[in-house]
């Protein structure tokens, strides 16, 4: 019997995260990372933004985006270190670091989105 591994699940998360990040990250980064800081558009009013982020659908979408994007990063960065820097001999360390960060980040996202008043 073939050895069962987590790899297919991790690949699915990588793939789903790739789609989520491609669809949602550029526009959010343009708004909050470029347009608002550069003064191209006025910053959204605090009350409005609080209402938007606090909506259950937004919390769920943002949580999904954070979770999947972080696992997308973990998978891709792991292979960048394997192939790009030929660091496969320390794969256990790399896996622990990458997926550890992704799990901690996902937990932080859940906590912060739960905390929104």
């Amino acid at each position, binding site marked *: 019997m073939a050895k069962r591994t987590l790899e297919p699940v991790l690949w699915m998360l990588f*793939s789903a*995260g*790739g*789609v989520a*990040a*491609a*669809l*949602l*990250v*550029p*526009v*959010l*980064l*343009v*708004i*909050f*990372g*470029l347009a*608002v*800081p*550069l*003064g191209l*558009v006025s*910053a*959204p009013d*605090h009350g*409005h*933004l*609080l209402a*938007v*982020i606090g909506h259950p659908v*937004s919390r769920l979408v*943002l949580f999904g*985006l*954070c979770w999947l*994007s*972080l696992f*997308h*990063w973990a*998978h*891709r*960065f792991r*292979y*960048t270190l394997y192939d*790009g*820097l*030929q660091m496969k001999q320390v794969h256990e360390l790399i896996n622990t670091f990458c997926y550890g*960060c992704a799990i901690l*980040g996902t937990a*932080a*996202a859940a906590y*912060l*989105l739960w*905390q*929104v*008043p």
Partner: protein
Amino acid sequence: MTERSAAERSVYSPYHPRWYRPRMSTYWWLKRWAYVLFILRELSSVFVAWFVVYLLLLVRAVSQGEGSYQEFLDWSSGAGVLVLNVVSFAFVVLHAVTWFKAAPQAMVVRIGGQRVAPALVAAAHYAAWAAASALLTWVVLGG
């Protein structure tokens, strides 16, 4: 001597053939533009992860109140953060474009036994991208 297997003997032989494993430079990916692009595409994930951190800092600031939100806005318009976000934007767009380019190859869509043209699958992804961007812009800035 005659009792020992060939495999056992080979362990001690000074003439054991060496494996042919040419050493590859750590910078192998600098040799061709296609390889550089591959590494840049893989590195885009680092900027995706940075964006998650940035987004969560924004969420935290907004949750904590108007003062924290204002502090976040001041911090985000500082030169260092701004430069990082400009670079991140370039990488995130590289990710999106290369992802949508690969999508028709990864996804074979069939409708009524006929394969949907790859160009159409790619076009659907770009349409979804435009729709998602328009919707989020409207929700965040308009609404």
